[in-house]
């Protein structure tokens, strides 16, 4: 028994070593011309792949090649490559990460690139571009907007006897009353959330209601404990506390089948909430629902929204910045967007699913896709929603970037959590956040 085990172990080690040595030799790659090394594009759905095909073809026609492994952007891996001076020519990451890297000088401003390739800044949604602008320079080429609008669950409203007009964000008193009426408690348990203000995530939206931002335009002065910010926090926490407190609220919200067929709208668990645009696709795919899409409005009644998404950037030390810039242009041309928009529409048709639009971050492309490709699906609710979604991005705003964007965000997220847990009042929490945030910014300047 013992000898057999030993022999088996030796055999295993020996064969594995053989495999290891030969596998190691198989990684050489021979290329003619230049190779554009790309990092950070993980999602390869039809919308991404279609554009990649176009861009890759363009590169190959120029006698070069592309190395674009399937891998999402990861900070540790990127840092390791920077340290080893093995810098990718082109990276793809979330727009909120771009700020932190840009402020540290890791990325190259794209002004020259845009001029050379004749990429018009005006093509991009302003708010998306603002998200990647630092000290007046643009550091990323944005994709997607994920604009936030309010989804109203008409079935829930009907059952609760709430007027649809009351679900709006201009008049906070009315909203609070509607929230109270819409939420439902059965046998001491929460069974329907009225209006979910989505804090901490969407806190900047609530502060923008006053027309204020959380940080100064130049990104150097934190404004977290302004009167308006404290009022916004107090109000939204109040909406949550009307449900019986954060614990009950969150515990109930955790039971939602968020992405599923029986999602919280279809299952009458939620009255209304602000959410990004992708959610309309989830709703369309799920059990039948009766919804209305509405803008988030500020105190004057004007629509506002926040955008999020990804962007392409060129790191400092990239060996092929010119090629990288050409690649960006090919990936984001209006024609490229149109062609993948059409593919997506056709795919949805083949799958028997609704097409709730594509929101690319390129204004011209968005309009073209809506006008040329989109066809009403016969469901008035969703058709109206799509019409709203197409117009929403122009009302977007972005939080100005600071030298310490990640830490800045963390301070107000932590502050809001402290208030939700009942450990501090809104003013105390935001005062503390203001101190911490300003210290972080000053240190990083």
């Amino acid at each position, binding site marked *: 028994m013992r000898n057999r085990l030993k022999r088996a172990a030796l055999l295993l080690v020996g064969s594995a070593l053989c495999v290891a040595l030969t596998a190691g030799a198989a990684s050489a790659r021979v290329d003619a011309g230049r190779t554009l090394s790309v990092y950070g594009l993980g999602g390869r759905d039809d919308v991404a792949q279609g554009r990649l095909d176009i861009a890759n073809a363009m590169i190959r026609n120029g006698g070069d090649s592309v190395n674009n492994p399937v891998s999402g952007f990861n*900070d*540790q891996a990127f*840092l390791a490559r*920077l*340290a080893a*001076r093995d*810098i990718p020519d082109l990276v793809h990451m979330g727009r909120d990460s771009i700020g*932190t*890297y840009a402020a*540290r*000088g*890791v990325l190259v401003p794209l002004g020259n690139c845009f001029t050379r390739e004749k990429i018009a800044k005006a093509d991009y949604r302003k708010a998306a571009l603002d998200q990647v602008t630092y000290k007046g320079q643009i550091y990323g080429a944005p994709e997607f907007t994920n604009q936030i609008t309010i989804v109203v669950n008409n079935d829930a409203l009907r059952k609760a006897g709430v007027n649809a007009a009351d679900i709006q964000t201009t008049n906070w008193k009315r909203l609070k009353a509607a929230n109270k009426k819409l939420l439902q408690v059965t046998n001491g*348990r*929460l069974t329907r959330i009225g209006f979910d203000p989505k804090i*901490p*995530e969407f806190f900047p939206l609530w502060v923008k209601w006053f027309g204020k931002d959380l940080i100064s335009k130049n990104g150097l002065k934190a404004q977290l404990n302004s009167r308006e910010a404290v009022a916004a926090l107090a109000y939204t926490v109040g909406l949550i506390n009307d449900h019986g407190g*954060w*614990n*009950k609220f*969150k*515990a*109930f919200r*955790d*039971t939602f089948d968020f992405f599923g067929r029986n999602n919280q709208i279809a299952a009458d668990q939620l009255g209304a909430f602000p959410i990004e645009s992708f959610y309309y696709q989830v709703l369309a795919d799920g059990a039948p629902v009766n919804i209305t899409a509405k803008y988030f409005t500020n105190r004057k009644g004007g629509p506002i929204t926040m955008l999020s998404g990804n962007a392409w950037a060129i790191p*400092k*030390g990239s060996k092929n910045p010119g090629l990288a810039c050409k690649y960006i242009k090919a990936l984001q041309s209006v024609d490229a967007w149109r062609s993948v928009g059409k593919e997506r529409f056709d795919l949805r048709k083949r799958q028997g699913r609704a097409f709730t639009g594509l929101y690319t971050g390129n204004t011209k492309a968005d309009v073209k896709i809506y006008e040329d490709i989109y066809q009403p699906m016969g469901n008035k609710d969703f058709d109206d929603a799509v019409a709203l979604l197409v117009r929403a991005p122009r009302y977007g705003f972005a939080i100005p970037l600071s030298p*310490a964007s*990640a*830490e800045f965000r*963390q301070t107000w*997220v*932590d502050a809001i*959590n*402290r208030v939700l*847990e009942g*450990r501090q009042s809104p003013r105390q929490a935001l005062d503390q956040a203001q101190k911490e945030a300003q210290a972080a910014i000053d240190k990083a300047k």
Partner: protein
Amino acid sequence: MASVAGTREAGPPSRARLWLSRFGEHETWTAYLFILPWVIGFVALTAGPMIFSLYYSFTDYGVQQLAGIEPTKTVGFDNYRELLNDPKIATSLKNTLIFTVMTVPAKMCVALGLALILARLAFAAGFFRTVFYLPDITPPVAIGIMILVLFNGSTGIVNRALEFIGIPGPFWTTDPQWIKPALAIMSIWTVGGTMVIYLAALKGVPAHLYEAAAIDGAGPWRRFFNITLPMISPALFFTFIVLTIAGLQVFTEVYTAFFGAGSTGAESPDAALMNVVYLFRQAFEFFNIGFASAMAWLLFAIIMAVTAVQFLVSRRYVFYQGDSR
């Protein structure tokens, strides 16, 4: 060796001479040969990085320095001074200590209990061994879901069961007071690895000891305290040390549950901020690598102190069959 000249020195050779003379022995050089693999690895792969990280802790090392955009500046003890000023450091250390104290003894007891039962079962032992090891290899995503579903404050089975017997269950996943116990339960649940070590140790207890004790009339408790515990004390000692070190460095489970991409990222409760989680955040989200290195060495010092104490305390209680060392 036996012959001695009359004019030799009168007393025994000095300690230093004894120590040096050991180098001449065959046993010493063989020992060094045996540990050579580790030494090579240490020199090549561990010593350098450890020294580097110590160096970083005295600098302002961040992304710019890492990428070569700016030169690295030494800042003396600034990072260490910052450790004293940052309230989150104190919070994270407190959380980590509480977590460790909650989990280590509990894990050892549960694992030992399970191992004792499993070692003596007449049937189904193999099945249960595999089942109890499953949590160790269940990926965090499934564990996270389980926590959210089973421990949900309003609809979870745990609270419904508690209600059934008249206790109102707390909001495990949101109430800051209950987050650490929830994390502790999650950690104790992955007890399979420790259990397996104890099972292996129990196998090493000579059977004839039990028989002799039974013949002398020893009951099960006495057998446990006077035979089982001492004979497996090396394994107990090992798990005590290792679980403590692991507890003080807890990261993955907490990060995936409360801080990483798995959660919505917008909730990061202070009550769940463990030391290494905060370290990771400082290093890879805020890019303050110099500061994070200082944190790491502070944690290192703490762990070393704790382990030294554990070693000293163990001298009285750990019994090795080989020799009393």
